[in-house]
């Protein structure tokens, strides 16, 4: 009996030996992202954004691949956020090289789906520790980033994309990519690795834009005039494709399925909207969608929640102070 008790006490050691020592922690990562200037209450990454709302109109094409109810033919509302990369919530919209779309489907009390997508189709690097070095290089300036990229051959597809990418004149005209792959799981338990993109249905040249909040002003007035539509297109992997490597796109000829249309019908400034309070952690998944082993994807939850914890606490502290002053 005593040996049993002793053996039980060693089970925590199993947890501790489950993985290699972490190279970069979530705290270190978020410290690097937030930089020296902290903007209390704001995201440590993609700090500047605007809330959106609308509906996903599913055509039912994907229902055979995933049991997630939003892929049945029908309509699911969402709250989302259009943002630019960077830690500064007042940065000029047009300076950021990356634009983003995040979505939250509150399907039911037991099913939620959060998505966070960027304009590039692939990552430059394949794991969070090298990504950390990439951000350090970006912060150090153009020479450092050139040096970094030349030392990382896995960045070649990202570089090719960056060389031909032309920023458009609207959030409505960009393509937003999942970058990381996920599994669709159907009711027979069959898995299909996929990536997806939100493909625009309008073309807007960059030239007409001006001002610090150019993209936000443009999208707000565009949506006020008429809904903005994206096609939600899934690319299906074949067995030869590596779903765990975000630096490599799958071949062009892979089957694509359009699951339906994302229709944006409203915008709200982020401090007045519902999106500011949401952690768009891409690993909040409904049944019918599952995470791959992609090391970048797997690192996102811990980093997003570290940023979320910090800004949530700042908001709570702010609210408590506010009520003391009343």
């Amino acid at each position, binding site marked *: *009996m*005593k040996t*049993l*008790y002793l053996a*039980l*006490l060693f*089970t*925590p050691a*199993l*947890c*501790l030996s*489950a*993985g*290699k020592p*972490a*190279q*970069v*922690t*979530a*705290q270190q*990562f978020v410290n690097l992202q937030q930089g020296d200037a902290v903007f209390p209450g704001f995201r440590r990454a993609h700090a500047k954004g605007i809330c959106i709302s609308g509906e996903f109109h599913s055509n039912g094409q994907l229902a055979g691949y995933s049991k997630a109810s939003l892929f049945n033919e029908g309509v699911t509302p969402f709250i989302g956020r259009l943002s630019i990369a960077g830690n500064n919530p007042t940065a000029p919209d047009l300076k950021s090289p990356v634009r983003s779309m995040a979505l939250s489907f*509150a399907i*039911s*009390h*037991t*099913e*939620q789906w959060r998505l966070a997508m960027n304009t590039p189709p692939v990552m430059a690097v394949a794991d*969070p*520790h090298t990504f950390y070095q990439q951000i350090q290089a970006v912060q150090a300036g153009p020479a450092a980033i050139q040096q970094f990229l030349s030392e990382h051959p896995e960045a070649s597809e990202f570089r090719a994309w960056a060389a031909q990418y032309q920023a458009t004149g609207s959030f409505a005209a960009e393509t937003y990519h999942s970058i990381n792959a996920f599994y669709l799981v159907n009711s027979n338990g069959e898995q299909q690795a996929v990536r997806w993109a939100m493909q625009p249905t309008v073309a807007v040249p960059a030239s007409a834009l001006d001002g610090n909040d150019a993209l936000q002003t443009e999208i707000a007035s565009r949506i006020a005039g008429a809904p903005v539509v994206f096609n939600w297109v899934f690319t299906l992997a074949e067995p030869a494709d590596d779903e765990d490597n975000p630096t490599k796109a799958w071949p062009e000829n892979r089957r694509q399925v359009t699951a339906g249309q994302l229709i944006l019908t409203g915008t709200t400034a982020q401090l007045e909207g*519902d999106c*500011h*309070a*949401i*952690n768009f*952690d891409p*690993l*909040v998944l409904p*049944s019918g969608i599952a*995470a791959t*082993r992609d*090391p970048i994807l*797997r*690192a996102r*939850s*811990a*980093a997003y*929640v*570290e940023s*979320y*914890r910090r800004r*949530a*606490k700042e*908001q*709570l502290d702010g*609210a408590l102070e506010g009520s003391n002053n009343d």
Partner: protein
Amino acid sequence: MTNAQTTDSDRFSLSMRLFHWGMAALVLSMLAAGLLMVTSLQPWQLTLLNIHKACGVIAILLVTARLINRLRHKLPALPKELSAWQKTVAKVSHWLLYILMFAMPVSGYLMQYFAARPIDIIGIFRLPAALQVNIQYYSLFRELHAVLAISLITLIALHAGAALHHHFIRKDTVLKSML
């Protein structure tokens, strides 16, 4: 060693001993997993997080069963040599341990609830969450979960220290009564 011998009446019942050591293993694993998963960017972080949440559900069921079991059993008396204040400290610390064993999973669940994150229990069922996020309640329970965890670690250290003190210094039957 000249430790006092135990008789059946000054030992905890078998069920209480099994609950004690089983939950000791669970709680220490949960604390280790919790501290590890909030810092790690490794691919197994997600797996550990999911196990942590599932074990949290097991923990609240176990501590409820354990409390009921405890209320139905006679406990061995504390050594007569202990002063009244020492006995009070012992009893209060035990009730604090129970309170923390309840408060840990409850605060953990509430923080997920207010972050609108349903909890998947190893693909079998899901615990509900709010439809809409309340970031201030999330923060309150997130910070509480951390403060409670630190309190629990401290209390467990004192508890284990006291047990060893009884055994090796006072040489009474307190530790043996739980073996």
